[in-house]
């Protein structure tokens, strides 16, 4: 944030990175922090804490079409993804891991680590130009040797370009051979309808801070049959697969966030899709920018090919980091299209997997809307963009990178 920027004038369109915590979640978390008790203790304080934790578990399960016993609380989605990928791989003792080419680093890197450190064979499932998993290619990969596959991981919706994946079809292909499917649903919750049981996946990860909850909270939803070798060993909490003193305030805050996000999802999705479409239409009028990911549907509201709150755009001849700096200095906060490793830019593996050239991928910006987004935000972006794009284009040429 610009040191001198007026906070009231700030436009935050980076909800896919993190969301402002909902007031009701802050209330829940504050009152929980004021209570004490280890949820594993046998005395009164322990029992009270445990009751609140189990209520949180039931609430998360009910909101996401799961059973309470299927909810494993974790300290965020990265941990949940690690537990799913490593846990299934170790427990099933099979060599191959199939993941989509557009997975988040929290799925990609554990799988990559298993390949380098544990001798796994990592196979990337190709995607089309919109970032959709190629089901025919997946069927062929499975047919090669179905018994050799430890797990398949395909995300519910992509964090960069917003593409929604054909999870049902992926599960159908896998189920025929008894192969478990892990699904990273971090970006999907609160934007589209997410039903764990109906999806038929073996494991599914969710995150608190992407839906108005606190950072450091999340869960792995895992069927009771899921074979998982623990990543964290200790006191044997959470079915013995996730040891560590139970985080009652975190779990209750997560539950509150999930409850609100899922309750509001139908109206919120419509509202955000309308705002997003206005933003897209405005950008199209101002510049020669190109929307990436599935095309925006006409009169979008029932569109199931992409997330309603995501707009991913590439600006020809511009550098994403120039655009980000210029917008930020105008109080508009968005993300470059690239993944960020500790603040170090990298060309986006998602865009490259979709077949974009590196110089095109460099000009990417991701606008992600959320519960605080308003028409005024969209207007502010559209007001700032013409000059920003013109300057960024001049800078792109000056840097010799375009």
């Amino acid at each position: 944030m610009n040191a001198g920027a007026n906070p009231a004038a700030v436009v935050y369109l980076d909800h896919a990175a993190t969301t402002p915590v909902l007031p009701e979640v802050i209330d829940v978390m504050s009152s929980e922090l004021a209570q004490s008790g280890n949820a594993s203790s046998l005395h009164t304080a322990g029992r009270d804490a445990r009751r609140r934790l189990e209520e949180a578990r039931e609430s998360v399960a009910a909101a996401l079409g799961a059973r309470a016993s299927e909810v494993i609380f974790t300290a965020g989605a990265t941990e949940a993804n690690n537990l799913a990928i490593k846990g299934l791989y170790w427990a099933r003792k099979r060599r191959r891991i199939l993941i989509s080419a557009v997975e988040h680093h929290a799925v990609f890197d554990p799988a990559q680590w298993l390949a380098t450190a544990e001798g796994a064979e990592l196979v990337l499932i190709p995607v089309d130009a919109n970032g959709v998993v190629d089901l025919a290619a997946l069927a062929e990969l499975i047919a090669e040797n179905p018994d050799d596959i430890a797990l398949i991981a395909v995300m519910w919706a992509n964090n960069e370009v917003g593409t929604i994946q054909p999870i049902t079809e992926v599960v159908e292909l896998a189920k025929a051979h008894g192969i478990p499917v892990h699904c990273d649903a971090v970006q999907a919750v609160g934007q589209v309808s997410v039903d764990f049981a109906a999806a038929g996946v073996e494991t599914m990860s969710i995150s608190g801070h992407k839906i108005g909850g606190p950072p450091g909270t999340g869960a792995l939803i895992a069927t009771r049959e899921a074979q998982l070798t623990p990543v964290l060993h200790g006191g044997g909490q959470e079915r013995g697969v996730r040891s560590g003193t139970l985080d009652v305030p975190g779990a209750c805050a997560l539950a509150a966030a999930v409850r609100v996000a899922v309750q509001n999802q139908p109206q919120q999705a419509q509202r955000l899709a309308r705002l997003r479409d206005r933003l897209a239409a405005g950008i199209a009028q101002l510049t020669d920018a190109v929307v990436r990911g599935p095309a925006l549907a006409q009169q979008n509201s029932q569109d199931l090919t992409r997330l309603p709150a995501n707009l991913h755009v590439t600006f020809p001849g511009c550098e994403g980091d120039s655009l980000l700096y210029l917008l930020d200095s105008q109080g508009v906060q968005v993300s470059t299209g690239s993944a960020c490793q500790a603040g170090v830019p990298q060309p986006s593996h998602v865009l490259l997997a979709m077949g974009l050239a590196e110089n095109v991928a460099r000009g990417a910006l991701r606008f992600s809307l959320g519960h605080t987004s308003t028409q005024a935000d969209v207007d502010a972006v559209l007001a700032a963009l013409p000059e920003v794009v013109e300057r960024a284009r001049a800078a792109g040429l000056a840097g010799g990178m375009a």
Partner: protein
Amino acid sequence: MKVLAALSGGVDSAVAAARAVDAGHDVVGVHMALSRNRDQMRAGSRGCCTIEDASDARRAAAILNIPYYVWDLSEKFEETVVSDFLSEYEAGRTPNPCVRCNEHIKFQALLDKGVALGFDAVCTGHYARIVDGPDGQELHRSVDTYKDQSYVLAVMGPQRLAKAIFPLGDVASKDEVRAEAEARGLGISNKPDSYDICFVADGNTQGFLRQRLGKKPGEIVDVQGEVLGHHDGAFAFTVGQRKGLALGRPAADGKPRYVLEVQPETSRVVVGPQELLTVHHLNADQAVWFIEPPTEWIDCTAQIRAHGRPLEARARAHGSGEMEVELIDGVRGLAPGQSCVIYADTQVLGQATIAKATRNMDQMREFSVAN
């Protein structure tokens, strides 16, 4: 002024940015991501541009309460600095990558991009002074001559001086900078200086060259052409080098032998006695002039390597692109590819890349006959 402060994550650039803030400028910190193959932590004085450096830069910006961004210039860096480094070694020369980085990255790609984005100047932690002279701005050695970096900065040329700020040019010593960092609460005050080539993370330049250029075996010969040994790549040798020749037998006179010349076409490395290393005359190209290019000889001092001492010299220009320099007392181990910067006292007059060092051939022939 709207100032873009290049923050490397080190002490110098952080204190330089702090001084720019104190001077009343509107400062924005930028860390340049120059390498994509990044190590997490810095190993001693080795390299820079690690994740740790980026974090330190971000922390420094937060302490100074200035915005901070990371700009990815890795493609440009690979295209200009790293590939030049490799092709120069392949051509038997000894490149100076810091000179190329200042030329192509800091005072070109970064500066031009900054100007296009609305900045007036780039501020760095270099040790050099910009002084207002009768004919405009001049580039001078820093007050602390031990830390002076005018040698690697001269390549930026006079036009870009107006858009550069070097707040550390007049500090008395690095200790003063460290003390100031400490006083300002910049936690990096004790961070070691980086000396090695930043993109060779483990400090093993030879290993890096072998990995990127492969094996190119050749002969090691003496001045008469007699084969004394073999090597895996002429790029492993620099004029003036004595160690690592691994010659089976000693010279007839029992004196140590030095690399006199690297011949890339034949991959031959010529070695000989120290006397033959002495060079009195050099021709340099890609000249950059801070004064009207002198068509007649002018007296000056010349520096021919980083941290080298100034040598009594005279110089003249041929056209604007070439520089000819006579070194009055001669110098040993002058390596083509290195930068030659000429000075009048502390003022930089010009800079060029050494293309050819002329050894006294008569002396070489006499030597051959005598032996």
